[in-house]
């Protein structure tokens, strides 16, 4: 099965030269040639000459380009790894060059939300329904002619992958052949690959965990230990599952690598952006102060806002989300928020299965 992988004859394309895109390109390069897209010519030149990007060494099998069409002409298999904020725009830009025989496996853990002009997801008066939320695979299906879509998700911190640590990931797609192609392109001695057909659940798991990473940062910021963290992770998983089911997903994927696996990795990784936001919040900074001094808005802040609004419109109870929301957006002190959660009547354990 593996002998006819896409990487045998054709290079694999990676779209987006952020830190995760770079890590993915390096993983793919172990099995064959990679064409690596960045829209900035400057970055392309540095990658091609200095062989480094985002602090990661670039594998010899990688060649960078700023020409999208060069990638779509030469590759069948593409790994878009661009932020959820610009994902739709990038897809719209690629659409004219894409063909029905392309396959795409995206690596973006985020939502795209269609809002009225001038509104942002952080606005208080926004009402969100599950149907307003687009996962990246839905964006691809809506904006391009590509149908064979998949995603890669799981506990895959870019820094650890760059440092050649072993890891496992999930490639999810409704299409067997997408999983097959993706797996044979990226599997290596340092990356174990699992498959899942429930791409929607896997995508949701990858995004919804971000709120919990933020809460984990807050617990860490307050100086609490592993008991509190385990409490958060377990009950947090419950809230993620409840929300995802209300959005129409099945539960199973949440117990796998892309669900609990990713949740544990992000909640216990003090280096992540989401964790840092939580920790700073706990130390008394306001959201505005945090946003003003960060280069980009941490995904977790958006996820909290989205989750809270979905909970409101679907009528489900998500206490952890509600209180992180209050701490982020309504000036509630983090310790107060935690006190409320400790007083909250939870009832039956593992009620989300």
């Amino acid at each position, binding site marked *: 099965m593996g002998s*006819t992988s*896409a990487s045998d*004859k*054709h290079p694999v394309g990676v779209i987006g030269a952020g830190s995760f895109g770079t890590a993915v390109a390096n993983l793919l390069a172990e099995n064959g040639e990679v064409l690596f897209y960045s829209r900035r010519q400057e970055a392309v030149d540095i990658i091609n000459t200095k062989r480094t990007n985002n602090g990661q060494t670039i594998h010899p099998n990688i060649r960078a380009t700023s020409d999208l069409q060069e990638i779509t002409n030469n590759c*069948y298999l593409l790994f878009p790894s661009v932020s959820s904020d610009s994902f739709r725009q990038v897809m719209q830009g690629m*659409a*004219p060059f894409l*063909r*029905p*025989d392309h396959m795409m496996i995206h690596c973006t853990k985020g939502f795209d939300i269609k809002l009225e002009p001038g509104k942002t997801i952080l606005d208080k008066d926004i009402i969100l*329904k599950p149907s307003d939320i687009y996962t990246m695979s839905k964006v691809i299906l809506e904006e*391009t*002619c590509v*149908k*064979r879509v998949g995603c890669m998700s799981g506990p895959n911190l870019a820094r650890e992958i760059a440092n050649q640590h072993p890891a496992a990931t999930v490639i999810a797609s*409704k*299409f*067997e*052949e997408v999983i097959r*192609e993706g797996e044979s392109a990226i599997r290596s001695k340092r990356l174990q690959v699992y498959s899942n057909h429930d791409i929607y659940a896997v995508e949701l798991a990858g995004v919804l965990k971000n709120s919990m990473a933020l809460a984990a940062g807050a617990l860490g910021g307050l100086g609490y230990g592993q008991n509190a963290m385990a409490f958060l992770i377990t009950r947090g998983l419950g809230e993620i599952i409840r929300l995802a089911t209300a959005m129409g997903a099945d539960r199973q994927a949440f117990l796998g690598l892309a669900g609990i696996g990713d949740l544990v990795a992000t909640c216990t990784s003090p280096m992540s952006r989401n964790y840092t936001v939580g920790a700073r919040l706990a130390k008394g900074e306001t959201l505005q102060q945090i946003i003003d001094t960060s280069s980009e808005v941490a995904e977790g802040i958006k996820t909290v806002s989205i989750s809270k609004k979905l909970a409101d419109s679907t009528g489900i109870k998500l206490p952890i989300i509600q209180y992180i929301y209050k701490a982020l957006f309504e000036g509630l002190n983090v310790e107060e928020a935690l006190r409320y959660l400790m007083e909250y009547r939870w009832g039956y354990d593992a009620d989300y299965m």
Partner: protein
Amino acid sequence: MLKSVIPRIKDWPINLIAQKRDKILQETISEAVLEFNKAHPTLSQLRDQLQKTLYLEHIRLRSEAWEVDPEDEKEFWGKVKKRLLQADPAHMDEDISKEQHQELLQDIMSRYANEIIGHFNPNMFWFARQLLVRVFARLFNSHFGGFKGIFNPQEKLKDKLIVAGPVEKLRNLSLKGTVILVPTHFSNLDSAIIGFGMDYIGMPAFQYGAGLNLFNSKIFSFFAGNLGAYKLDRRKKNPIYLETLKSYSKTNVLAGAHTIFFPGGTRSRAGNIETELKLGLLGTVMEAQRIHFEKNPANLAPKIFVVPLTISYHFVLEASSLIEDQLRRTGKEQYLVYDKPQVAGKGIWKFFWETFSKSTDITLSLSEPMDVFGNSLDEDGNSIDKLGNPVEIRSYFINKGQLKADDQREMIYTQMLGDKIIEGFFKNNVVYSSHVVSFVAFELLKKKLDYPDLFTLMRTSDEDREIDWDTFKTSVKRVIDELYVLNNKEQIKLSPMMTTKELDEIIELGITNVCIYHTNLPILRTKEGNITSEDLKLLYYYHNRLIGYGLHKCI
């Protein structure tokens, strides 16, 4: 009536295919045998399947015999049993046993294919068309001579049976490829009404599957059997029958037969628009498109066009029995039948009489035609993306330059096509006043009584069923406002009556129309002017037509 796209009935694809009956039969059988062996490659698997089929057919013969069944049915299956016993590989050379099993499979499939295959007779078609037009005309005339006179004499058939949507495009496409019409399914009359509607807009006749049970009626059998209906037997759920049926459908689509598939499988029992489709026959359409590409150069491969169609009725002939059936299925022990179901014995003529003689109508609302991948089409049938750029759909069947079958891939494509079809159903659902009043009345009752389940609600006593007129009217207004919003977003369509009449009149016409046919009125006004219902099940049924749009939030 629009001019026929192909003037001579003799030149219609359906007739050309009917001429090749033997070829179609042979291809159906050989293809079915081939596919079946692919799925069950070993002798023991095949033997298992044959035994299973024999067993299921024995049960069918014993428990559910029909008049339409051939006389030698028992004899045939008796012989199958004997042959299966004789061919036991335990008692003979395996190769001989294999051969005998293959012969048996071939014979059963051949019998099924001969039962399924439809026939088309151009003269009969011409005759039936004349007859129907006359019958309709007579219904009108008798009314004009009659009493009420609520509509003007210019009103003709075209105001009664409205075909809405991209009619011209559909006509064009029928000359450029094979059209698969996929309608919602509410009534046994759907096929006839769609057939008539399509003829009315000048489309060549479609093939369609009709339940074998309908062929128990000699009149139906005589007409439908000559007008392109092939026979579907829902009793036969055995794997060999299903494979033969799929093969027949595929062979016809490949031969270029314009076909009607009801993707919901059976009539909607709850009265809602289908949200789950049976993808088996639709899968053969996907497969046929791939085979076209395999057998032809890219630019010459015939194309298949899929067109969803949403039917709107004010009232449905079988509403009572359908909803009874639905409640019994979903309710199980919670739902005990207290009243005898209302007998739908008034029959077809009453339905036609009421529909065509009173101020009521039927809409066949066509969705935008698409290719089997859900892409839009230009006037010539070329696939285009949302920016209007051409899409080479052949490449959807290609992996790294190689075009070949991949069942799992095609299954997912078929699911995606199913989603597009459902989207089309909902977007082009034409809302009638009767749908709105039923929806609002039931939602208000549900809210007022606040019962935990539907089944308690259904048994509410008469006095509890009353809804205050003002509340009702305000809610109808709110729902209509929301419908306008949805209409602007192209998520639903409004019938002309909804957009031209005043609120009071919309309500009145809605109530009148939904009640025209039923003995126990699903919705009516009390002496005090309030709203009530004599049949909550029916009210629920008609209410369901508008679920899935989030309208309950307006109540």
